Each structure stands twice: as structure tokens, then as C-alpha cells.
């Protein structure tokens, strides 16, 4: 524990009139160690089975409360005010508005257009889902922010969810047309729409990113991905040819183990290279976005590294596979911990002057849409 952490994690005889500390920063964000998550995850699974899956909403809400409470600003936790009941209602709404029409549409298309109706229905569904996905991202963010508070001051998200969804959709269509080159610009544009609408109390966040700095790293990642996309199938066909000649040569109906092992090793190596490059880019993106975000006089800085993010991702995959997805809360907590530990806060002398916003906290509905897409913050 560093001196800085010690100072802010125990209650201080500090009142609003005390002089500001001169040698420690006014705002510190730390992570409180979260224990007992594995036990909680298993308990949630058992309760899910007993209630035929209905408990999942309350399970999600409790996990979120634990994770939110682990984020400490000046030693005091964020608070998550959402409930399982809100998630459940959102789920029901999404079921009626999204799932049932989605199931009915192919049937109607077939009845109306015969067998030709099927591809039409598929295209319509695909476009609709792409739009809804963007909308769901916005709604989920707004819901979570409205339910998050620090020292009683609520966060919020302003703006138009439909506008965000539309922007997400038309730029998504451009990705294949530009061979992927639009991706950094798109990420930055969507992030700006989100952050510019965010607020803590009466103070708004601002985002002033230029995409330029990201493109250098993206160039590297693009080249690596293109190389892998060419190399991968080449290797696969070479392996297939080798295997075919091997099998036609002898009466052995199986491939020699060295060949299989070599093939698997090569495949894994390619995946590792891609994973590392992708993590390197994503870390740079996080750092860049953090540096471009401001909250009044508070600035942020990101210190993620490609290796660190890659290690985190590998670990998460290992946990997900080993536990068949049951230990998802653990994965979420790990990701949150890493993100918080790599986020710096600079400035913030006027933090305590933020006043509560007038927005009604119950305005934002639950995130049923995001649930329908099986989507979460991390």
C-alpha cells in the first residue's frame, strides 16, 4: 500500500473547510480487493437452477453492486442503485418488442413471398439487429450511469439514443467498404457521442479526441491482420494437401501425431500474434480516450499496456472455458480491476463543489435490450 493510498482509505478528520493537501492529489481512484466472488458465482448458478433461470436478473444486480462498491474515489465507493426487478422488467419489454417480432418475421416473410421471403427476412433482421445493438449500447449506458452515484451525487447520460444507433449503423456498413480503415474514426466518433453526454451531478464530461494518433497503431494492426488473413488459409490449405498426400500414401487412416501437433501449434501461434496486436491497439485506444476525457478541472490518463491487456484477456478466456461461463462475475471483476488500476486522475480541486443534478433518477428504463443482446459493460 503506498502512502497515497493509505491517506485516503481511512476516515479522516477532514471537513469541508480544511486546507487542501499540497503534496497528494485531490482525487484518487483505487480498487478495493473483492473476495468471495467465486462463491457468489456458484451460489447464483444454484439459485438460477432452482428458480428456472428467473433469478439471473437479481444475480446480475448483486454482482454489479459488489463491483461498483470496489471502485473507490478518495476512499469512498461508487454506489449502484439498480435492482434485479428493473432488469427483469426491461427483459420483459425487450422480449415483447424484440424477440417475438424477430421470431415472427421469417414466418410472415415466407407466407407473403414464399421461399424467396427467407433471404429478405434475413437481411431485414440483420439490419434491424445492427441498429438495435447500437441503441442497446446507449440505453444500457444511460441506465447504468443513472443508477451510479458517488457520495450521493448521480451520474447521467444525455443525448439521443436513436442518433447514436443510427451513427453506429451507417458507419458499421462502411467498415467492409473501407476494408476496415474507418474503424478508429468510428470508435472515436461513437465514444465522443457517449462521453459528451455524460455528467456527474451538474458537471459535464467532455471528449476532445482527434483520431490521428490512433491511426499509426491501427496501421500496424491492419497489416498484421491482413497478413494473418492471407497466411492463415495458405497454411490451412498446405496442411490439407500434406494430410491428403499422407493419407493416400499409406494405409494409416490417421495423421502422424507430429503433423497434428504442428498444425495446432501453428494455429495457436497465429492466434497469439493476432491477440497481442489487437491488445496492443486496444490498450492504446483506451489510453488515448482516457487522455481525451475531462470532467471540469479533472483530467484522466490511461496506462494500459498491450502485454497487460493481452494477459488479462487470456486469463479471462481461460476462466470462461474452464468454468463453462459460470465464473463470469470473476471475469468482470478482473477486467474492472485492471481498468481502474490503469486509470489515473489528475486535478480535481473543485470536486467537492459538484452539486446534484436535477434529473429524475427513475427516468431511465432498465436495460432489457442490452440483456436481449447478452451484452455487458466489460
Amino acid at each position, binding site marked *: 500500500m503506498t502512502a497515497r493510498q493509505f491517506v485516503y*482509505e*481511512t*476516515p*479522516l*478528520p*477532514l*471537513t*469541508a*473547510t*480544511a486546507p487542501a493537501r499540497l503534496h497528494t492529489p485531490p482525487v484518487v481512484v483505487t480498487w478495493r480487493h473483492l*473476495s*468471495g466472488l467465486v462463491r457468489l458465482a456458484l*451460489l*447464483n*448458478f444454484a*439459485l*438460477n*437452477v*432452482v*428458480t*428456472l*433461470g*428467473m*433469478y*439471473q*436478473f*437479481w*444475480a*446480475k444486480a*448483486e454482482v454489479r*453492486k*459488489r463491483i*461498483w*462498491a470496489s471502485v473507490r474515489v478518495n*476512499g*469512498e*465507493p*461508487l*454506489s*449502484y*442503485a439498480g435492482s*434485479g426487478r428493473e432488469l427483469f422488467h426491461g427483459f420483459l419489454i425487450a422480449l415483447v418488442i424484440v424477440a417475438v417480432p424477430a421470431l415472427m418475421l421469417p414466418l410472415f416473410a415466407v407466407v407473403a413471398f414464399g421461399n424467396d421471403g427467407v433471404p429478405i427476412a434475413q437481411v431485414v433482421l440483420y439490419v434491424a439487429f445492427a441498429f438495435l445493438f447500437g441503441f442497446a449500447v446507449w440505453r444500457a449506458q444511460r441506465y447504468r450511469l443513472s443508477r451510479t452515484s*458517488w*457520495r*450521493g*451525487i448521480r451520474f447521467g447520460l444525455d443525448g439521443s439514443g436513436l442518433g447514436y444507433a443510427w451513427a453506429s449503423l451507417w458507419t458499421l456498413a462502411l467498415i467492409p467498404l473501407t476494408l476496415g480503415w474507418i474503424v478508429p474514426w468510428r470508435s472515436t466518433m461513437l465514444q465522443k457521442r457517449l462521453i459528451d453526454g455524460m455528467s456527474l*451531478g451538474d458537471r459535464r464530461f467532455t471528449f476532445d479526441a482527434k483520431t490521428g494518433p490512433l491511426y499509426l497503431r491501427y496501421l500496424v494492426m491492419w497489416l498484421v491482420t491482413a497478413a494473418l488473413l492471407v497466411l492463415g488459409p495458405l497454411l490451412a490449405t498446405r496442411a490439407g494437401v500434406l494430410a491428403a498426400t499422407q493419407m493416400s500414401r499409406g494405409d494409416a487412416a490417421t495423421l502422424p501425431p507430429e503433423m497434428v501437433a504442428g498444425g495446432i501449434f501453428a494455429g495457436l501461434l497465429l492466434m497469439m500474434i493476432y491477440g497481442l496486436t489487437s491488445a496492443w491497439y486496444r490498450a492504446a485506444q483506451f489510453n488515448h480516450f482516457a487522455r481525451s476525457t475531462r470532467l471540469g478541472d479533472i483530467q484522466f490518463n490511461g496506462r494500459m499496456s498491450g502485454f497487460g491487456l493481452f494477459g488479462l484477456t487470456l486469463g479471462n478466456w481461460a476462466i*470462461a472455458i474452464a468454468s*463453462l*461461463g*459460470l465464473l*463470469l462475475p470473476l471475469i468482470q471483476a478482473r477486467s474492472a480491476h485492471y481498468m481502474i488500476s490503469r486509470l489515473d486522475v489528475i486535478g480535481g480541486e473543485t*470536486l*467537492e*463543489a*459538484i*452539486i*446534484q443534478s436535477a434529473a429524475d433518477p427513475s427516468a431511465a428504463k432498465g436495460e432489457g435490450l442490452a440483456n436481449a443482446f*447478452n451484452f455487458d459493460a466489460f
Partner: protein
Amino acid sequence: MRSISTPSDVLPPDGEGPPTPVRGRFSDGRSAASWVVGIRIERGHLVIEPDVDNDGSPTRVTPLAWPLGAIECGEPIGSKSVDVLIHEPRRAGATVFVADPRFVRALGKAAPQLTGAVTRWKAVQPFVVLAACVAVVVGALAAIDFSPARTIAGLIPQQTRAFLGKQVVRNMVPVGSTCSTPAGKAALDRLVAKLSAAAGGGRTFEVAVSNAKVVNAFAAPGELIVLMNGLLQQAAGPDEVAGVLAHEMGHGIELHPEAGIVRTVGLVVAAELLLGGTGGGNIGSIGVGLANLSYSRSAEREADGHALAILKAARISPEGLAKFFARMERLEGGSSPVSGKNAEGKTADGKTADRSSSGGSSNDDSGFPGFELLRTHPSSRDRVKDIKAAMGTYPAVPAMDAADWAALKAICGETPRAPQPGKPSRKDPVADRPGRDI
């Protein structure tokens, strides 16, 4: 700030809270500023007192009292909690943060509704009751043999059923492998017409023959039946084919194929709902697939009942059906695993023990035909007994004459062989029979 009394009237703590004063940080919810306060549990309330000022004099603000039954916590109190964030009743905005483990434990004891165990139980309780009711209802329905899938299947309109059936047949029978030599088709149509008339209810069944080596027949939705060539070749006489067709018609009359589809869709949706939340969706899909492999025994008994009635109305002896099932059970029960290259797969004892290793379509090119029939049509002594009991109770004529039977056997004369699933199709145009004598 609301107050209940002046400081001098506050009663001494009566042992609910820890003896030493505990400090916390208080925010009034109107701004992000915070003050140090003293906090204690007293008489079912949380009492918050402003702390002394920096210069040592008490401030002039009066204490707050929040009823323990109305406060909320930022996260549920657990056995390992070391701090707690308390929200004002009705979440009006004020919060107190206390980083004292003993206080947290005391609070958990004084207000158990704030602990994780109690909150979880409160959330789970209505659903456990609901799940118990659902289990009771399902159990009762199963006991009286009520099948909601069957009822829903009955509501599907005829056109949709026919459409579904055509889709199923299209999936199961590759295009171009339907057998229909004119003479064979005519013979088959005559038999099917006779059986359809005997089935009654104005139904007309349609039978398609697929040039596949497997010994099987199945009923598709919408009064469609598919017969595999393998079964035709294995049958020793027209009565056996008529018996199998009548059995499949029984399935069609009872809407078993439609009910099966309804059940599958329902199970998939249910599995998604139950297990989707915990990431076990894949396990659910596998389970659904496994659950739908075969008809239940009661379904088979129903089909048998109809089959016997149809055969009786058409004046065809049920002996053919009994013989066919008996022979199939002997053969499939003793057949060797799929990899065997020799064609003589049957063992003398005819045990059904390794039924799981046999059956299914054969991967072997040199041709042990797959005896799928019994895998999807579980047999039993009772069924054969019931069929045999109906024999001889009415005068019977052969299902078709010798010329028609020969034509039917050769119905796949010029049709290319339908490929087995997973096997490349052979170019051999001549339909070679397995050449086995039963």
C-alpha cells in the same frame, strides 16, 4: 436536516452498537462535499451526530436518526465486509460511509434485511414458490398423460402442417433421389389409397420412397410418409410394407410429428430462458437434441392401435407387421458395430444389448445397411403381443398382388442412390440390393 431531539436528550446506547464511538463520512446528497460524523446504532435507529469541529468546539447541527428498517446499503453486507455505505431512507440522497468492520457486523445483526443472505432469499422466494407450482402442475399433467405439445399441434392449420411436412421431407430426402418408376408408383398409390380409405376421416396420405439403404420409414407433418428403399428390400412381403405404412399413418393421425416439432421449439426456448442467463446455453441445446431422438413408448402404442384398426378396415393381416418388427429386432440387436467390413453382422443370440453401437446410418461403403428403424421406434414384447392378438380375427387378403409387389420392390430401379449422411454419393446407377436373405 431532520432531528428527533437535542443532544442532551439522546439516551445512552443500550448495548446494540459497539461501545466505542464510530466515525463515518457524511454527504448530504446536495453536493459532493463530505463531513466526518459519529455514528451509532440505537433503539432501531441509526443515529448520526456531527463530529467536533477542527477547533474543538461542537458544531451547531442537530443529530439525524434514520430508522434501520428504511435504510439501504450500497452493497449487501456479507460476512467479510469491512466497510459499508448507507443510504438515507427512500434514497433521498444523503449517504454515510463507515469503514469499521465491527460496526458493519453490528449493523448486519441489527438490520438483517441488509445482509446478502436475506436479500437473496427475498428475491428468490416468489420464484421458488412459482417453480414448485410449475413442478406440481407438470407432474400432474404427466400423470394424466396430457400433452400440451399435442394440443398446440392440433391448433396448427392444415396448410401450415402440409408446408412443414414438405420442408421436413426436403431436408431428409435429397432432391433427385425419390424413387418413382411408373409401375412401382402405381402399385404404391393403390396400396396407399386403400390404407387411407381405411384410416377414415377423409384423410389422404402421401407416401414418397427415397432411394436410401437405411431400413426406415417416418411420418412427416401434414400426412406425409417417407419410406426408405432399404425397408422395401428387407420386407418379405407386401403385408409387411402395408403394416409399416399403417403404423406411420397412425403417427400421422395422432399428429406425433407436429407435436414433436412443437416440443422441440418449446424446449429450445425454455432452455435458452433457463440457462441463457448463466452461460449454459450450449448445454441446453445439446440436451434438447438428445431429448428429441425418439418417440415415447406411449406414442408407439397409440400408433400401433391405429395401425391395427387401419389394417383391419383394409382387410390386411397384421401378421406382416408383427413379423417385420420381430425380424428387425433380431437383426438390429445382433448387428455388429459400423466399422465391420464383413456383411454378416448378425450374431446368433440376437441380443439387443449393443443396440446403441449398431443402428444409425452406416459409414461403411461395402454395405451393412443401417437399421435405424428400431432406434427411433422402440419395440417391446407387449407391442408384438398386441399385434399378434389381433391376427386371425378377421378374414384377410394380401395387401397387393404379386405383380404389384414386384413393381414396388423395383421402384428404385433407375434412381441414383441417395447419399448417406456423411458419405460421398456413389456414381453407381444400379440399385444393388444388400442381397441378404432373411
